[in-house]
């Protein structure tokens, strides 16, 4: 009983300490996000505009000029069919690109040390950078969606699914970018994965075509490409059509997000690429 009577006071102190610790962590997390937002806005010509430009070119060349000859795909105009894929492509590229450039830049300029000497736990640092990537992915996704609306009518069949797909995809590639940046020792290694892995996977991920058009072996191979699930889950949110099982796609995305977060956290905890 003596212990019980002493407990409430101690519990209150512990609770206050925990609240203040959580408040400090939240402040730290939001500071990373604010800093990332500042970076995105400061160099808007590099971060927000190029994807809109690329989307316009895709719509004009693939959608309008070539698309007219393609006709319908999945029961929709070709322009309508590729719009969700193009939005997702910009989200993927920008989420990844934001974190890989920002984190590697911080390593290269040594200002990553500002975070490493601070009391922020590594999971907050990982979450902060991932949130920065998410922010850029969503900002660019919104810009490209607006551009898409100039060229195609985009009905929204399942808003929640659409948002969940874009959030998970952006998170996955933000974490992927972070892992790339952790390992990268020079700028070549920052560009290597986006050029030789990400771009081919995106182009073969059902952005421009339905995998139903492919021969069986290519279709089977496509199902090993995670981007296929992301693009189709997103397209399902807009148009209500998908080449893959939508619940399966979400299960794959959630698993990937968790796995990449854990990998990034483990690398940070071990100090790979950031601590001697």
């Amino acid at each position, binding site marked *: 009983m003596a212990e019980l009577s002493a407990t409430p006071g101690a519990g209150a102190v512990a609770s206050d300490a925990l609240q203040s*610790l959580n*408040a*400090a*962590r939240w*402040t*730290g997390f*939001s*500071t*990373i996000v*604010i*800093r990332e937002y*500042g970076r995105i806005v*400061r160099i808007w010509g590099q971060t927000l505009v190029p994807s809109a430009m690329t989307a316009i070119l895709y719509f004009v060349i693939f959608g309008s000029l070539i698309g007219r000859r393609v006709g319908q795909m999945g029961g929709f105009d070709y322009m309508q069919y590729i719009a969700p894929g193009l939005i997702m492509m910009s989200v993927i590229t920008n989420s990844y690109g934001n974190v890989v450039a920002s984190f590697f830049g*911080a390593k290269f*300029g*040594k*200002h990553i*040390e*500002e*975070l*490493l*000497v*601070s*009391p*922020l*736990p590594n999971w907050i640092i990982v979450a902060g950078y991932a949130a920065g990537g998410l922010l850029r992915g969503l900002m660019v996704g919104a810009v490209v969606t607006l551009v898409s609306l100039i060229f195609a009518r985009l009905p929204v069949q399942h808003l929640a699914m659409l948002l969940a797909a874009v959030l998970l995809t952006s998170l996955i590639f933000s974490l992927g970018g972070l892992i790339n940046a952790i390992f990268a020792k020079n700028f070549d290694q920052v560009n290597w994965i986006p050029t030789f892995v990400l771009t081919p996977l995106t182009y073969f991920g059902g952005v421009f075509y339905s995998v139903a058009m492919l021969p069986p072996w290519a279709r089977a191979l496509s199902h090993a490409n995670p981007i296929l699930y992301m693009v189709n889950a997103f397209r399902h949110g807009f148009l209500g059509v998908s080449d893959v099982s939508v619940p399966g796609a979400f299960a794959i995305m959630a698993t990937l997000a968790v796995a990449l977060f854990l990998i990034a956290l483990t690398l940070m905890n071990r*100090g790979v690429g950031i*601590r*001697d």
Partner: protein
Amino acid sequence: MPALSVRGLTKTYRNGVQALRGVDLDVAQGDFFALLGPNGAGKTTLIGIITSLVNKSAGTASVFGYDLDTQLERAKSCIGVVPQELNFNQFETPYTIVVNQAGFYGIPRAEARVRAEKYLRQLQLWEKRNGIARGLSGGMKRRLMIARALMHEPRLLVLDEPSAGVDIEVRRSMWEFLQDINARGTTIILTTHYLEEAESLCRNIAIIDKGRIVESDRMSNLLRGLRTETFVLNVRTPLAAAPRVVGYEITRVDDTTFEAAVSSEQGLNGLFAQLATAGVEVVSMRNKVNRLEEVFMQLVESRGQGG
């Protein structure tokens, strides 16, 4: 409880370089402590471990009683660090840099803005707060790193070569500032190549060489142990040869400049008495090298010969 306590700290880098070989060190609360050593002695590695930028190989370290292995967040909250190399984003403004740093230590933005003004003003950077940090002068960049390190008002401030490349005027004002915050209770650990800086600022000192602490004592005790000092004498009338003074070794630099080696037992009175008798008028005198530098060189050289 010491501000910093280090026991058996070792660090071997992946390339096999053994930077620390069992360092034991205590720094008392409120101290102004100098950590000296030649290049590659292990100073920056030691500071890197204390500030979590370098993973240790073995040993323990605690800051105000918080163990770096088990209470890392609390230990880090107590430390502010001014590194040797510039490590802020050169494309951000000084204001953004310091406000963000406060945020990383959990200080709410409103409070961070107040502190930003306080420390940027104290370090004469307020007028430059909205320019790009890359455009600051070398001295301003150093001061910016000090302002940044103070934003969470740390109990222990670690400065690794803070005045490297800084002109004398800025260095002096930096010294005054550091003495002031030390007087208000902040413990300071300083590494520097300017031994005059360590001698005039620090009360206690440790000398590290080849990854080991070779001396740790009060500054006054260490200087008292100085065996021989060399003084440079300027005389009024040019002399073709060094004056002969019994018991002292005098060497000629030029017609009006001579160097005299004086041991701690001899003192200077005997030297001046004999020079006066010989009709040599000394117009000025100075130490050839800083006294701490003498001690430092004696310690490092004797270890070099021994090992």
